[in-house]
């Protein structure tokens, strides 16, 4: 029988998290869910014409890594990775499931999600998977805090999220030296 980390304590943690993430920090990213039904793929399951649902604003904590420059036979380029951590309970309440391949837009860049994990627990357990709780042997203990996404910056030209090179680019998309 666990003594600490009860549902009441978990509620406090949830409340503090919501206050901190949604009200104090309030960093919002745009979430683009991959529309598998509308995306055509080849026999290997690859697609160069992905289709995404419209964006949703979601608060999260962002850890943006430094830009790393690369140079190869195609010229100069750069890579960047980032970590996006969402409140799992808020995702659950809005029925949002983040998966690999979904795209996040933040700070003018688009990040394609490489991995998704939800293994940060309060009290060391996730009540959804807690055997004792789910078999009714004890009350609810613990809390699954976050959904953490590791992502990398991807080219927006391959996303079909923004119109590019049409000649009618929006002003904000114009290169600075033009």
């Amino acid at each position: 029988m666990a003594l600490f980390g009860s549902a009441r304590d978990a509620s406090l943690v949830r409340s503090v998290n919501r206050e901190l993430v949604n009200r104090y920090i309030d960093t919002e990213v745009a979430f683009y869910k991959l529309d598998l039904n509308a995306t055509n793929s080849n026999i290997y399951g690859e697609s160069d014409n992905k289709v995404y649902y419209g964006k949703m604003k979601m608060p999260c904590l962002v850890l943006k890594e430094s830009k790393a420059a690369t140079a190869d036979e195609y010229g100069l380029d750069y890579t960047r990775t980032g970590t996006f951590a969402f409140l799992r309970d808020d995702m659950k309440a809005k029925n949002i499931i983040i998966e690999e391949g979904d795209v996040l837009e933040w700070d003018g860049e688009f990040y394609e999600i490489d991995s998704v994990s939800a293994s940060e627990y309060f009290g060391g357990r996730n009540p959804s998977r807690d055997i004792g709780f789910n078999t009714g042997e004890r009350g609810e203990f613990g809390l699954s805090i976050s959904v953490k996404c590791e992502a990398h910056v991807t080219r927006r030209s391959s996303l079909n999220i923004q119109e590019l090179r049409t000649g009618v680019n929006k002003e904000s998309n114009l290169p600075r030296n033009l």
Partner: protein
Amino acid sequence: MAVNVPIWPGSSSFFPGDTPFGFYDNDFEFQQEVDKIADWCAKRLGYPISDIELQPINFYTCFEESITEYGAQLNSFNIRDNMLNLFGASTGSNLTGKKVSSNFGGLIEIAEEYGTEAGSGGNVTYYTGSINIESGQQIYDLTNTSSVSLESGTPGIDAIEIKRIFHEPPPAIARFFDPFIGSGVGTQQMLDAFGFGNYSPGVSFMMMPIYADLLRMQAIELNDTVRRSAWSFQLSKDRLKIFPIPDGSNFTKVYFNYILKSDRSNPLKGNTGTISDYSNVPYENVVYENINSVGRQWIRRYTLALAKEMLGYIRGKYSALPIPNAEITLNGADLVSAAQTEKEGLITELKEILDTMSRQAQLERKQAEADALQSQFTKMPMKIYIG
């Protein structure tokens, strides 16, 4: 389904029964103020900028405790200040909010034991006992049940202490003739000499000073002491020795006063159901609507300190709370520390204020005022009289 425990929603609506003890739930003024207090405390703690992880009932609890604490301090002070006036009074009447009059009851109570030993009142009964005196027997055993009679207790079984033995010679005044009779003191001859001898009673014309009687009595007593066997006794443990040796004609009993030692050492001399100590002085919770604005402000501040402390304990239950991809430490320790300092300060402040209002402090203040006034008067210019 996750449990969501509600926190302070921004407003509250009190209903009797929402406090743990319900001491003041039906007090109209309390009902009027309790939600305002909760609102004020929440705002003082940072709402609505930050969430307050407390519920309305938490604030109600703090408010109730604050009033009770205020009342307890007040009652404690009243008990301290009036204890001597309250000893022995009935525990049945509620003293809360009532003026306690000074009296000597407690003081006399303390002095009664001295009265007992001095034979002037006291709280131990003086009983009467007697010893049968036998002719020629000078020494008597006070534990002998056949010769000793006790009003209370049994000789030899109950420990007694003799307080007085009535074994004294007849008073000297009874040993000479009444001077108003005029006989025995040689006054008749004097009256004859003055020509009053034929009157009956001739002594009606004679006025003697009182000291003449006193001198005569002293002379008789001194004579008895020096020339005759004195009427005396010697008391040693259970043994009584009588002087002079009784001959069976002058007296057959000797009476005495005594106390039962068990009576004297009995600590429960007062009536039951009376005030005996700090714990049963009948002070009850204060009536909130009777508390003035000064007291209410103290209560508000104490309520806030309690709420702060409670919030601190809630926020400090876990040293670090997980947030997405990190951990944070809340300000629980700061809140608890600040709240405890505030609480101590408020209690100290209240005690100091109360202490300045004790009878002793008030009298000292009046004395200081009088002294200061007198000092001022001495500096007034004296009027110069020009005749």
